[in-house]
C-alpha cells in the first residue's frame, strides 16, 4: 500500500501515459533491471544512497553508445505530484543527453523529493537557484507533437517515460 503522495503522483503519471514503479532502496537495483530495455545508458544518480554502478546501465557512454541505447536512466532531485513532472538537471554527468536521446527515459525520483504542486516546485527551484544550481528541465510525460496532423509521441525526445519512485525508509 503506497502513501497518498506516491499514489497521487502515480495517478498523474498514468494520465500522461507514463509508466511508474515503486521500489524500496533495497530493491532499487533489481527494480532498474526490470524496467530498462538494454542497451541502456545512464547518468550517475545525484543521490548518496543510490547508484547505477551495479545495474546493467552504461555510465559515461560514448556517442555511439548514447545513440545506440534503447533506454536512458537519470536521477531527479524533484518531482511534482500533481503534474507527474520530474526535473532533469543539466549536470556534468550528462543527464540532459541521457534523458533525451534514447526512446525510453527512466527517471528515478525519491518519495521525499516529491513536491505537491507547481507552486511548491517553484519554492524548491528558488532555493536551488540561490544555491547556484540554475539549469533544470521540468519534464512531463514523453515528448509529443500535433504538427503532423495527429498527436504523436517521441519527437525529438523520448517516446516512453518510466518513473521509478524510491520509497522512503519505513
Amino acid at each position, binding site marked *: 500500500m503506497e502513501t497518498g503522495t506516491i499514489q497521487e503522483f502515480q495517478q498523474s503519471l498514468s494520465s500522461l501515459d507514463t509508466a511508474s514503479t515503486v521500489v524500496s532502496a533495497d530493491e532499487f537495483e533489481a527494480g532498474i533491471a526490470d524496467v530498462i530495455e538494454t542497451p541502456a545508458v545512464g547518468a550517475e544518480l545525484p543521490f548518496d544512497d543510490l547508484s547505477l554502478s551495479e545495474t546493467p546501465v552504461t555510465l*559515461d*557512454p*560514448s*556517442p*555511439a553508445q*548514447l*545513440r545506440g541505447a534503447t533506454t536512458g536512466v537519470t536521477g531527479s532531485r524533484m518531482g511534482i505530484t500533481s*503534474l507527474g*513532472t520530474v526535473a532533469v538537471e*543539466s*549536470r*556534468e554527468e*550528462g*543527464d*540532459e*543527453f541521457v534523458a*533525451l536521446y534514447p526512446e525510453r527515459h527512466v527517471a528515478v525520483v525519491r518519495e521525499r523529493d516529491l513536491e505537491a504542486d*507547481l*507552486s511548491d516546485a*517553484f519554492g524548491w*527551484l*528558488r532555493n536551488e*537557484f540561490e544555491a547556484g544550481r*540554475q*539549469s*533544470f*528541465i*521540468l*519534464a*512531463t*510525460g*514523453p*515528448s*509529443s*507533437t*500535433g*504538427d*503532423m*496532423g*495527429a*498527436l*504523436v509521441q*517521441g*519527437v*525529438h*525526445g*523520448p517516446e516512453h517515460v518510466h518513473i521509478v519512485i524510491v520509497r522512503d525508509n519505513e
Partner: protein
Amino acid sequence: MSESTKLDADRIRTLLETESAEIKENTRLFNAERYDAVEAVGAEAHEGYRDRAREIKEDAIERLPELIHQTRSAVEANGGTVYVADDAADANRYVSEVLDDEGADSVVKSKSMTTEEIDLNEALEANDVDVWETDLGEFVIQVAEEAPSHIVGPSLHKSREEITELFEREFDPDESLDSAQKLTAFAREYLGERIDDADVGITGANFVMAESGSIALVTNEGNARKCASIPDTHVAVAGIEKIIPSVAELEPFAELISRSATGQDIPQYLSLLTPPVDTPTIDFDREDEPAFGGGDAERDFHLVLIDNGRRAMRQDDELRETLYCIRCGACANSCANFQSVGGHAFGGETYTGGIATGWEAGIEGLDVAEEFNDLCTGCSRCVNACPVKIDIPWINTVVRDRINRGKDPGFDDLLVDGLVPDEEESGTPLRKRFFGNFETVAKLGSATAPVSNAVAGTGAARTAMESVLGIDARRDLPEFERTTLRDWAQARDTAVEDPMRRVALYPDLYTNYVQTERGKAAVRVLEALGCEVVVPDAGGSGRAPLSQGMIATAEEKAEGVAESLLPYLDAGYDVVVVEPSDLAMFQREYEKLLPAETHERIAEGSYEVMEFVYGLLENGAELDALPGGEGDGVAYHSHCQQRTLGLEEYTKIVLERLGYDVLTSDVECCGMAGSFGYKSEYYDLSVDVGQSLVDQFEPAADERTVVASGTSCMEQLDSLLAPGTRHPVELLDPVRR
C-alpha cells in the same frame, strides 16, 4: 507583404477554400482545451495568475533599461555574452559574426517568432550557412517555403495529407509517409542527423530572467533542449520585452502559458537554462570514446536581445501593452474570424491573430498592420482569453485610428465633411466615416421613413452603395422606424406607484431608430416589475465611430452620453441598456474616452436589461408579472461583448425561471459584429463564421424561438437561419399575455 497578397474578397475566399478547414479544427480544439483547463484549475486561481502576470509585466517593462543591464551582468558573470540589437539588420549581423567566429556552416533552430521577425534564416543562408528548423511545424513551413499561420502552431493550416504530399515530393522517401507517425519518424531522423552535425544551435527564449541570466523555453517536442545542448555554441534570440526580474516571477507564467496556448497544465518541457550549462559537450567525431566523446570543447553562449521598435513601443501609451504579450496564441484561437481564415489573412509579416496588429504596428509599421487590422471586429472575445489581460481590441482600434489619420484626404472627404461632420481628420476613408456616422444616417432614415427604406431597398441604391461604400448588396439593410422609441415613450402616459427602482432606459441607436419593438418591450417589462422608466434624450454611445477607428468622434459621443446620463445617475436612477455592445462601451471603452470618475459612475450605474430583470427578481419583484414560458423552447445566442462582461447567464436564468427550455449557443461569435458583415470584402467570411451558429441552431429552429441579445447577431441569424429572431426581453413583454 506583396501587393498580390493584400486582403480582398478574392483572397479571403481563396483562404476559406484552402486553409479554413484545418485552421478551424485546430484553433477550436486549442480553444476548447483552454476552457477546460481553466475550469479545471478554477476560475479564481486562473484570475489570480493573470493579475500577477500582468503586474509583473507592467513592472518589468517599466524597469526595462535596468533589467537589461542586470541581465547583461548576470550572463557575463556566467561566461556568456549579451548583445542588444537595435534592429533586424543589427541582430543578423551579430549572429552572422558569431557564426563566422565559430567557423560554423550549419545551424539548427528551435521555433522562434523573434527570428522570424528579423528574417534571420534568410540572412544566414545568404552567407552560405545551412539552417534547419527543428520544430516539426516550423520544419513543414520551411520545406513548403511558406510563412507561419499561427504563433503556436505555425503549420496548423496544413492537413496531414498535404504534409505527406509535400514530404514525399521534396524528400522522395523509400516508403510512403502516409501517417502522422511515419511523418514524425521521418522528420525525427532527418532532423536528428542535422542536430548532431550542427555547429550552432539557435533558440528563442520565452522568458529571460535578469537576476541569474537564465532563459526559459517552453516546448513539447524537446527540440529546444536539443538545439541548446547538442551544439557547443548556443545563441538565444529574444525581444527585450521577454525579460522578467528572476525565477520567482516565472511562476505565474509557468502556470499560464501552456494552459492559454493549448490547454495543457504544463508543457512537456519547461526548461530553465542558465547557459553555458554544465552538460558536457559531445563529440560525434570520437564516437567510441567514453564520456560523450571526451571532448574538451568549451560551451559558448550568446544572448541576443532585440529592440527592433520595442523601446519606441514602450514609450507609446497605447502600444505599450503589446509588450506584455507572452505569445500564447489564445487571442487567435478565441477569434472567430481567425478560426475561419487563420494567420495568412489575420496576420502581418510575422505575427498573427488579435495581438498581431500591435506587434506589426510597432515592429514593421502601420502599413503592414493595415493589411489585416480590419479583421478585428472588436468583439472582445480575446480579452478574457489573454493571460496578461491585454486590451487587444483597444490596441486594434488605436492602430485603426492611426491608419485613418495617415491617409491623404481625397475628394470623398470634401464631400463627406459637409454631410456628416465628425471629429476626424480628413483622410479617414469614406466608408469608415459612413459607418462611423451611423447616428446621422439613422436620424435621417427615421425622419424620412418609410420612403428612406423603400429607396434604400431599390436595386439602383444597393448598386450605388456597393460601389461607393462597399456595402454588400446581399445584406438586408436595417429598416428605420418613423416613430422612434423616445418619441413613443414621451407620448405615453404611465405612472408606476411607489416604484421599486427608477430606470433611465438608454436609447441606443438601433433600439431607438430600428429595433424599437425591443425597446418598447423593455419599457413594459421594467414597468411590470415595478420600475418607473424614462427614456432620456441621449445620443449614440460612440460604438459606431469607435468600430471604424474614429476615436475622436467616439470621444465626443461619449461626452454627450455622459452629459445626458449623469443627471439621472445623480438623481438615483439606474441606467439600463438593451444593446450589449453599447453597455460594453460604458463598461470598458469609456475608461479610455472619459475622465476616470465619469467612467466609473456610468460603468457602476449601468446594467444590461436582462441582468437588471434578474436583479429585480432577486430583490422581490414578482415573476408572475411576466408571461410564462410554459415549457416552450428557446434557442438563445448571447452577444460576444456581453459574454466578455460575464452577463450571458442572466438571460438564461431568467428565461428558465419563466419556464422556458433554453438551448444556448456555444460559438465564439456570430460573425456579424456590427458593420463588419456589411462590408463587401468580408461578406463571405462573415457568413462562414455565422455558419457555425447556424449549424448549432438549425436543427432546433423549428421547435424553438430564436433569440439574440445583440442587433448585429439578430441580423446575422435573420439572414442565415430564419427571419424572426427576437431580443430575449421581447419574450417577457406583458403584452404577450
